[in-house]
């Protein structure tokens, strides 16, 4: 009998064993009392679920003792994060037990923004919302309603607005203030969504380019893990960033690029690869279109020119591209994420990054862009509106308001790819009634006041609304400005959709309640069903379990089967044999030149396009993330607040020396439109930022006194972001074009211009606003 075969049990043996029906009498589960005796989190009841402290949604295991969640860890079964989760994930407990969290439905009793509330019942709250939706539709037509959405809960309400038929059924900050431009650029180059989670195989890259990313300060657990693994395996790292980020601290080369000149660097690099025959000839010849056009277009851009425009040493620019070329095709070019920076150049900047990626052949193989898997689950619809317009809203003789002649997406030829409408168009329509009036807003999971550029404008728009309701966990500024507030159950108290990572390994994970909802908070699924009922919708499913089972059936799973392990993995295929490589683009190839863009009168190939330099006396206001917080929504979490209570302003050391500033000094910020920060911000003096920029982490300076821990801590970057430019292709509101100077002890401190600005770069024109 071969030793190897011993455990290969034949069917007969298996049947014999099964027939015995042996019980596992030797061991039993710990009772809750016994478990509670063990120290720390040991012995706790374990409930697998999915985190929602940010949108990365790592699989977790929540540990419960005596009915209390005591610890959250990663799910060891997860092939992406395993037992690891970040500071936010660990701190989910303090969202659940936040004393300031929304607990009951509430109705405003003072003016909008005052923060005076009366507690009402769920029935009253939902009746009021449904009534207002119907009234608004009657008076102004279905498009007069807009929904601002982000996060797990938002999807359920988005379905309602979409079913009602408004073109403004969604307005995701994710698209229109963040990832839209990059997503569009890569969609039209590689044919798939390369940016949702950056689909770049950093763990297996031999060289990594971080352009437009401060990975390591934005914590996307599995991507950071892969990034570090790639570095540990010896990958070379190039970081292009006006600030010496955490990633720059690990880089072989840091290129502190002049903000707004990125296209010069990318185009010069592209030309360098072509001129010196350093590009992946096989990939370009067999899998790309537009190479000859690109070659012609970039011919005039050389490294000397880029060095001048970008204010970078030529040797470093050359060293960097040489490193990338030497390591092709296993080069991880991060496609970027937040890309709503300057306006017209935004999509083209990421097109240039995608072109560079293509020339390096870094597509479909280890280290490069990978093809995302499709999770084996079904898509189902929760509710349907079978009578359109909604039953019963029109009385005898009343007619429906005819639809407007102009769509809010009119000005943006590629906006149709993104569900919903551009933010700026919605706000302008709300403010001015043009091209048609918007009178009702729904908001879920997004703090619109601290997210949308020019919050002063947003507030004015809100004042024009007939009705606004807000669904959230905690009372942010947006909640302050709502008429009706609904308390959303936290992710630890509910079911939600199914989640997948769509990386080089994948899973389908179940979010399930760890503890029952506290106070009168309810899962968004249930709130939406109730609202839908009042609007005459037909529900296809009446419970989360039923709805989830319908999605899982295809893969042979159910909620019951998944509830113990929390997830199942499945085979994925991230790479492609060059022989079997094809792209879901119009041409079927990797599109170095984009005919689709040319058809709409946009450049088929990126051209130099530079953001205006700061006006004299000002520095550009850059913003970003800190690893301990998520957007503007975790500042009230007592554990996270304890780690990082306020933001500080990074100021270049030469600038500081010229102005007599040291670390810890406080200054008020005044922007180009005359708006000032509500209170002084502490300065952090460092050589790690260019003299023509300052850096302020996003999301602080809460203006909601209902958030006792977060209120007034730090300074809001959003309230200094009063200027933005509309990106012309899909309608993002690009806002990295605000500039500040300092006010200290009543005196205005103008920022000295230490780095000269060449004539090729225009100046920002200083226009004061009311």
């Amino acid at each position, binding site marked *: *009998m071969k*030793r*190897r075969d*011993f*455990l290969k*049990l*034949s069917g*007969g*043996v*298996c049947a*014999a*064993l*099964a027939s*015995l029906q*042996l019980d*596992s*009498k*030797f*061991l*039993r*589960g*710990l009772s809750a009392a*016994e*478990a509670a005796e*063990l120290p720390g989190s*040991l*012995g706790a*009841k*374990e409930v697998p679920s999915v985190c929602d402290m940010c949108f990365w949604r790592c699989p977790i295991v929540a540990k419960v003792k005596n009915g209390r969640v005591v610890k959250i860890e990663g799910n*060891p*079964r997860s092939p992406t994060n395993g037992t690891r989760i970040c500071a936010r994930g660990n701190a989910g407990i303090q969202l659940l037990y936040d004393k300031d969290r929304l607990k009951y439905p509430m109705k405003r009793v003072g003016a909008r923004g005052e923060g005076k509330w009366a507690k009402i019942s769920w029935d009253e709250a939902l009746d009021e919302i449904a009534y207002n939706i119907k009234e608004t539709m009657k008076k102004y037509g279905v498009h007069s309603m807009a929904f601002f959405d982000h996060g797990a809960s938002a999807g359920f309400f988005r379905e309602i607005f979409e079913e009602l038929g408004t073109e403004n059924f969604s307005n995701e900050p994710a698209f229109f203030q963040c990832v839209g431009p990059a997503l569009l650029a890569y969609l039209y180059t590689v044919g798939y969504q390369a940016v949702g989670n950056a689909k770049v195989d950093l763990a297996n890259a031999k060289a990594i380019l971080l352009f437009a990313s401060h990975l390591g300060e934005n914590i996307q657990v599995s991507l950071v893990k892969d990034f570090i693994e790639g570095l540990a395996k010896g990958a070379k790292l190039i970081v292009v960033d006006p600030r010496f980020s955490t990633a720059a601290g690990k880089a072989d080369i840091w290129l502190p690029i002049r903000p707004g000149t990125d296209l010069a660097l990318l185009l010069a690099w592209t030309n360098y690869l072509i001129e010196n025959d350093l590009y992946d000839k096989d990939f370009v010849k067999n899998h790309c279109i537009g190479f000859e056009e690109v070659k012609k277009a970039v011919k005039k851009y050389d490294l000397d020119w880029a060095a001048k425009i970008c204010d970078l040493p030529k040797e470093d620019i050359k060293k960097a591209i040489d490193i990338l070329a030497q390591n092709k095709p296993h080069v991880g070019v991060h496609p970027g994420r937040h890309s709503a920076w300057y306006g017209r150049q935004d999509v083209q900047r990421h097109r240039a990054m995608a072109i560079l990626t293509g020339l390096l052949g870094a597509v479909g193989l280890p280290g490069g862009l990978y093809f995302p898997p499709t999770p084996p689950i079904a898509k189902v619809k929760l509710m349907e509106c079978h009578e359109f317009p909604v039953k019963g809203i029109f009385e005898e003789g009343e007619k429906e308001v005819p639809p407007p002649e102009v769509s809010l997406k009119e000005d943006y030829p590629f906006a149709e790819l993104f569900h919903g409408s551009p933010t700026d168009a919605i706000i302008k329509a709300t403010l001015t009634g043009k091209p048609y009036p918007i009178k009702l807003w729904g908001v879920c999971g997004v703090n619109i006041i601290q997210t949308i550029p020019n919050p002063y404008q947003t507030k004015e728009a809100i004042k024009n609304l007939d009705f606004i309701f807000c669904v959230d966990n905690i009372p942010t500024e947006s909640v302050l400005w709502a008429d009706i507030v609904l308390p959303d159950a936290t992710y630890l108290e509910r079911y939600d959709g199914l989640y997948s990572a769509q990386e080089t390994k994948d899973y389908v994970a179940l979010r399930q309640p760890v503890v029952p909802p506290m106070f009168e908070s309810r899962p968004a699924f249930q709130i939406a069903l109730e609202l839908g009922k009042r609007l005459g919708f037909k529900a296809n499913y009446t419970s989360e379990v039923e709805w989830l089972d319908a999605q899982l059936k295809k893969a042979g799973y159910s909620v019951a089967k998944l509830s113990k*392990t929390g997830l*199942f*993995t*499945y*085979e994925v295929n991230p790479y492609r044999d060059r022989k079997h490589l094809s792209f879901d683009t119009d041409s079927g190839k990797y599109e170095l030149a984009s005919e689709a863009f040319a058809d709409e009168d946009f450049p088929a190939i990126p051209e130099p396009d530079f953001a205006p330099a700061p006006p004299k006396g000002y520095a550009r206001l850059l913003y970003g993330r800190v690893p301990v917080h998520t957007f503007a929504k975790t500042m009230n979490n007592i554990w996270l607040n304890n780690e990082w209570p306020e933001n500080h302003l990074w100021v270049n050391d030469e600038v500081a020396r010229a102005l007599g500033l040291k670390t810890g000094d406080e200054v008020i910020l005044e922007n180009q439109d005359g708006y000032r920060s509500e209170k002084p911000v502490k300065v952090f003096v460092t050589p790690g930022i260019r003299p023509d920029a300052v850096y302020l982490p996003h999301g602080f300076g809460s203006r909601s006194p209902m958030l006792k821990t977060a209120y007034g801590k730090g300074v809001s970057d959003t309230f200094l972001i009063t200027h933005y430019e509309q990106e012309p292709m899909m309608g993002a509101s690009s806002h990295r074009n605000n500039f500040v100077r300092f006010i200290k002890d009543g005196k205005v401190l103008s920022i000295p211009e230490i780095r000269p600005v060449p004539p090729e770069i225009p100046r920002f024109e200083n226009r004061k606003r009311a």
Partner: protein
Amino acid sequence: MNNKAEEKSRHNDRASLFLFLAHLWDYPRPELISKSKEIFASLGLETPEKAFEMDEALEAEYVRLFINAPDGVPAAPYASVQLTGLMSQQPAEQALAFYHQAGLIPNTAEPADHLSTELAFVAHLLKEGRYALLKSFLQEHLLKWFPLFRKSLEQAEPHPFYRLLVEVTEKALGNLKEEVET
């Protein structure tokens, strides 16, 4: 069926085997002894009729080998005894720690490090797919004392059933060890 499902099914079958072995190291029961002949035979062992006779001799042998004997228990099936000479020492605490990690505690009157309980734990880990914990449990605990136990059992010149049983258990553990190490 994809690889994962196949693997899961295979591990469930092994889990059944190890649970079966756990029961066989417990006080002998007639229905299990008779079933074991069929199963051992399918695993390729020689299964003489006499070895599987469930009679007083077998019961007495179980007591002699594992519970009480005139010169002391020759083959105590406990990690602590095999490793330290005494009952309920640190190896028992170590076993208990492993069980706690999986949210379990022993459910019999025996100390935590009895062979039956430990084999039942292996079965549980296989069934739950906790392969990392299984690897630790094998490398850091069970496989450290099982060879000593086997030796002491052989030296006690056991009834042929227990000679067979220890051979089956050793081979099963050996194959499992190889698998988790790859």
